[in-house]
């Protein structure tokens, strides 16, 4: 797979990040229908899907370098954004192996993995890394294994320990989260971690999701999409830094909403890890400005309808009330009321 990597753009400060036409067309748009409600919405995670974002097991896109740099900055500021509880040692190595194998397979021009028994050599061309190490021996890597590899992949990751018929969030690299705290939630069970989500509990969504995930099989990963809205293409919208990004929400005007307001989509993957029997939860985030997403005509129409008719409790939970009307007014200009097909594919190959 060949992608053209941008040199570092910023996802904070001056927010220089932009999506190229290719990036817009490959965006994992989350709404297959004109209305949105919570559902388990899990499907097999196979290579291929409605857009190119689904082509690799772990997607690398043009923002790779900028996102890795943003992660590194966040970790300097707050090292507790990456924590793994001591009993998850095997899951760390499982994660490193899975990510290295997948990246080297899907992007052979960017990443290489050479192995002789437990003597491994990992080459990351975009970041200029050439690391020889002993698989299983943490002393031979500059960071603990989970942190080492997740610093080189886009998206957040958590590792769930399976025990007592439940899943416990016992580790994570969380620097691009949609407003939840790793340090606070570390160690929580499945329902505890999802505690703050409204509406879904009454629908039994989490009971069914947990029952399903407890039987997740090795070799059969699954995926689903989640979404929210973010002001500016800011990756770090953590509760820790809410004092920094909270004020952005009050700066939205009809004139700037198209440029500043971003649709934030998480392509979430769930993979059973072989040595630890843990589950790796990948939260791959994508940010697109409203003015970018409406260039795909189908998505402009659909997004308007979804946000206009959204359940108020869900809108509240996703932090929208302050600017929801401004967004809907902006998007209405891109909705001609025409019937729109189901499915999330863009249905155009050029903008």
């Amino acid at each position, binding site marked *: 797979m060949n992608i053209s990597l941008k040199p570092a753009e910023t996802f904070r400060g001056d927010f220089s990040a932009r999506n190229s036409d290719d990036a817009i067309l490959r965006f994992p748009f989350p709404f297959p229908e004109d209305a949105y409600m919570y559902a388990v919405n899990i499907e097999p995670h196979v290579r291929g899907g409605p857009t190119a974002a689904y082509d690799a097991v772990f997607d690398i896109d043009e923002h790779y370098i900028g996102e890795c740099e943003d992660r590194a900055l966040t970790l300097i500021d707050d090292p507790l954004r990456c924590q793994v509880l001591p009993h998850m040692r095997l899951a760390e190595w499982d994660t490193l192996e899975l990510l290295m194998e997948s990246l080297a397979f899907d992007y052979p021009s960017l990443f290489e993995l050479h192995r002789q028994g437990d003597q491994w050599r990992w080459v990351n061309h975009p970041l200029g890394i050439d690391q020889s190490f002993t698989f299983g021996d943490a002393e031979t890597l500059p960071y603990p294994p989970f942190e080492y590899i997740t610093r080189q992949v886009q998206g957040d990751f958590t590792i769930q320990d399976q025990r007592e018929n439940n899943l416990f969030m016992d580790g994570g690299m969380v620097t691009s989260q949609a407003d939840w705290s790793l*340090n606070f939630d570390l160690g929580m069970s499945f*329902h505890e971690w999802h505690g703050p989500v409204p509406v879904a509990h009454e629908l039994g969504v989490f009971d069914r999701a947990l029952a399903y995930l407890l039987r997740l099989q090795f070799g059969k990963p699954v995926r689903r999409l989640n979404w929210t809205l973010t002001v500016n293409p800011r990756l770090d919208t953590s509760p820790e830094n809410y004092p920094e990004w*909270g004020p952005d929400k*009050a700066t939205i005007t009809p004139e700037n909403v198209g440029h500043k307001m971003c649709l934030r989509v998480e392509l979430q993957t769930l993979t059973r890890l072989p040595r630890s029997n843990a589950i790796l939860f990948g939260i791959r985030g994508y940010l697109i400005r409203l003015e970018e997403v409406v260039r795909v005509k189908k998505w402009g129409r659909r997004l308007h309808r979804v946000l206009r008719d959204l359940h108020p409790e869900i809108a509240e939970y996703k932090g929208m009330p302050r600017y929801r009307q401004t967004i809907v007014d902006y998007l209405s200009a891109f909705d001609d009321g025409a019937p729109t097909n189901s499915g999330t594919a863009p249905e155009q190959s050029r903008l």
Partner: protein
Amino acid sequence: MIKSRPIYTPFQIDPAGRTHLVATDLAKLPDHIATPEIETWTVETIAPGIAAPAGGMTRAFRSVPDLLSHLSHRLSREAAGFRLYALGKEAFLWDIMNIARAAGLGSGEVFLTQLGSLKRRVYCTHCKTMVEDVATNIVTCPGCGAHLFVRDHFSRRLAAFMGVMVDAEVPGEVPPVEEVYAAWHE
């Protein structure tokens, strides 16, 4: 009621256990909870130099940290079939639970009963300071000065409720402060 809130049980001895220990942060358990035949640890503020009362099955500790430290030591020498019962305010219950878990105890072996103060321990998400005994829905963090809204989202690991800045979007726009967690719970 957020799903991550723990649910507590009324005090009841588990007949499947063989050794039982009751621990409370109160000086004396309420009359309707009787533990005459069971080893009970309490907390009573007694000045150093004065012997702490110890009679029958009850032992009083000078402070909660003192009780917790003795508990760690005790659990490392206990055998299977042990049951631990904690009664007291919420932060105390989870401090006990964390020590119990570190010693290997799990669900079915530790029982938590909320008693006494409903005041909350609050974790400031922004500067990681713990604020004890919060009775209000909004509290000023002694660490960073932020006005924190006290959420219902609870971390058993940190034994605290989540506090997040309430006026981040429009600084100074702080809702009225209400005393909501002060009641005494029997």
